[in-house]
């Protein structure tokens, strides 16, 4: 089970989480064990980044996150809610099975949160939606 643990070198990181831009989408990768203050800083930074860049979507990759407690769960839910208000959409990607099992038991099911199993699926979800909402979409769906 040692692969799931940072060990003596998995020192806590207290700096900012980088926000990358990929076309119309902002990509955030959470790694390891986050300080509460780092998570809150990210929430503020993301709101700024969305407005500044006009991005239509945010992908939050949490595949490197070993636990989500009620604090981090609340931050994720608030990020999703605030991006909605800023005309963007958040997709949470890569939640570990053990994290999902634990969150449900904890009572935090995050019903409004969009999720995808990987970044490609999230990108499809976001760009598909962005296209259809902005232009009525070149989508191949029958009327």
């Amino acid at each position, binding site marked *: 089970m040692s692969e799931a643990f940072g060990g003596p070198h998995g020192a806590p990181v207290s700096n900012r989480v980088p926000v990358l831009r990929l076309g119309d989408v902002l990509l955030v990768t959470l790694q390891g064990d986050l300080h509460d203050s780092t998570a809150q800083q990210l929430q503020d930074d993301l709101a700024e980044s969305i407005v500044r860049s006009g991005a239509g979507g945010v992908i939050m990759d949490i595949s490197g996150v070993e*636990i989500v407690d009620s604090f981090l769960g609340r931050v994720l839910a608030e990020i999703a809610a605030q991006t909605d208000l800023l005309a963007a959409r958040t997709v949470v990607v890569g939640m570990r099975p053990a994290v999902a099992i634990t969150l449900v038991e904890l009572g935090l099911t995050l019903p409004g949160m969009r999720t995808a199993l990987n970044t490609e699926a999230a990108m499809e979800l976001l760009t598909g939606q962005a296209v259809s909402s902005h232009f009525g979409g070149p989508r191949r769906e029958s009327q």
Partner: protein
Amino acid sequence: MHTAAGSQARLPIRSDMDLVWVRQHVRQAAAQIGFGLVDQTKLVTAASELARNTLIYGGGGTMETEPLTDGGARGLRLTFADEGPGIADLEQALSDGFTSGEGLGLGLGGARRLVHEFAIDSAPGAGTMVRVTSWVGRPPRPREES
């Protein structure tokens, strides 16, 4: 800060940095005792909830870890103690949705669902002590329907 996991240890809970150390220590101790990945995750999550309560409501305190054996069974006991204002209504504090500070109010009730044994001792003005224990390989507690 490098207590050999598997031995008794006491960690301070004074800042959100300490919450990170608490989680890492519990993860390491649980892995060494032989908890599987899902059970490690549950125990670390419970510890994070309880340590945050100690920090936010209790004004800081300590966590003690203690490996246990009971016959052939191995377990880990975590004790969170603070000398804060204490809790007047324990039943209310354990119900989902109750919070007197930040958070979703899932801290105590949520943590209780993630462990096998849960005990709390608190009174107004007398601080709070929460003790949780989980055992390797034991199925989760039966769900309480409410």
